[in-house]
């Protein structure tokens, strides 16, 4: 049901009956390694290209989520997924393996929550009973497409972030036990004219702030409603900017409530510069770490605001600025 300008409330409260997070070697050394269902020591995952490795990550995340729910892949009625590769090949190729009716989406790194929001809408409108939503990214495949070769010796500035190698999926259903999706806010495209692909956090922060503001306005609630508000992949600098911008806009979110998946995933001493990024960042942290914390009873209500930078390698070479978006999904433990 539409609420306000850009939000949906789900009256039937779709249930996340199972979820999965799969990660790579760098994530295995990270701060939330225990919350992954599967971790790989090999960045190649035994494949002959990084693109195939990313597809494999997503396939495994799908498999594990289905297995955990004691279901078969034939039971999945719709699969919604997105990633950062050109023509979203990782998602489409994983969908080929899954064999379920498939909706490919692109919201850059916001794809994780875009998928969860659309999936919840399908469940809430009784258009489906089992929907699998996922997103993935692979550090080397993304670097290759958007930046320089991985082994190229250029010095990254302090605003640069580290793309997460990982995939996360959530299986939604009309009934069952687990955390429930209660509402979602779909973001607008915000462009503040920044054009540095090594400063995604700074470019995406206003989009996150816009969506967070819209969420509270549309649903007429206060930030204190949530135990945790996690942005997708703003990193250190973007997180700082977003916090200050929210304060300036008159929204006070306590420091221990507002966090960022890009800051949660890695340890302080890992050389990730400003933090994690990529579709896999918000997907693995939400579907692994955050949902686990909810199940343990540490968190009751969370808001995940996945942020995405909608640029292409071509658009920034042509000196276009970086349009950004953020989608927020509210998950509650009943």
């Amino acid at each position, binding site marked *: 049901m539409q609420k306000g300008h850009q939000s949906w409330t789900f009256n039937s409260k779709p249930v996340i009956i199972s979820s999965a997070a799969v990660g790579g070697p760098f994530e295995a050394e990270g701060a939330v390694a225990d919350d992954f269902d599967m971790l790989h020591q090999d960045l190649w995952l035994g494949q002959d290209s990084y693109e195939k490795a990313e597809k494999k990550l997503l396939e495994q995340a799908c498999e594990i989520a289905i297995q955990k729910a004691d279901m078969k892949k034939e039971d999945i009625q719709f699969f919604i997924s997105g990633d950062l590769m050109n023509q979203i090949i990782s998602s489409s190729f994983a969908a080929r393996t899954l064999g379920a009716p498939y909706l490919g989406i692109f919201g850059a790194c916001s794809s994780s929550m875009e998928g969860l929001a659309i999936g919840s809408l399908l469940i809430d409108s009784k258009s489906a009973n089992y929907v699998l939503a996922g997103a993935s990214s692979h550090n080397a495949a993304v670097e290759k497409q958007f930046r320089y070769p*991985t082994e190229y010796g250029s010095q990254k500035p302090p605003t640069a972030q580290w793309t997460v190698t990982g995939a996360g999926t959530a299986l939604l259903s009309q009934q069952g036990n687990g955390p429930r999706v209660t509402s979602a806010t779909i973001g607008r495209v915000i*462009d503040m004219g920044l054009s540095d692909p090594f400063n995604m956090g700074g470019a995406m922060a206003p989009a996150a702030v816009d969506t967070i503001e819209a969420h509270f306005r549309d649903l007429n609630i206060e930030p204190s409603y949530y135990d945790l508000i996690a942005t997708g992949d703003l990193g250190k600098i973007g997180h700082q900017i977003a916090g200050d911008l929210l304060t300036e806009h008159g929204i006070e979110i306590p420091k221990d409530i507002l966090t960022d998946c890009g800051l949660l995933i890695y340890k302080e001493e890992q050389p990730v510069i400003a933090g994690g990024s990529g579709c896999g960042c918000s997907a693995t942290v939400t579907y692994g770490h955050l949902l686990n914390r909810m199940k343990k009873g540490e968190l009751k209500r969370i808001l995940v605001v996945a942020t995405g930078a909608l640029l292409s390698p071509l658009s920034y070479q042509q000196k276009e600025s970086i349009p950004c978006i953020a989608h927020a999904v509210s998950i509650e433990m009943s």
Partner: protein
Amino acid sequence: MSNKKNKKLTPTQQQYQAFAKAREPEPSVVRNCLRAFLVGGLICTFGQALQMMFINYFNFTEETAGDPTVAVLIIISTLLTGFGMYDHIAQWAGAGTIIPVTGFANTVASASIEHRSEGFVLGVGGNMFKLAGSVIAYGVFSAFVVAIIKITIQALGGM
């Protein structure tokens, strides 16, 4: 930021960019310069040692010793790239590893490795000079222009 670029931005965008800029850490120029000087200098000293070795032990002259010296540096740099160590050194050293011939070897080697998955023709061959191509193109062109100038001055009786 230049004024020309600013004109295209709306006041809100300009305001935000100033807001964001204030929260971005600046790369430390002094520290980066020192590191670049140190590492770049070390590479050049090592190159000098190689050159002297070729002159003293392998019967090269000062003119001809340059070629094997550069070749050794290129081989070392390419190997370090292949073993995945060069980019880590470069993140620390910055311009110190990019400017010498080692940086050029790294751009070619890294692009070749990166595109190996697309095959030898479309992948390695087609992308090998993805980054180094513009250095070669503009380097050769600049050399051509300088040579024309030199020849003209010589023809006019200068030098």
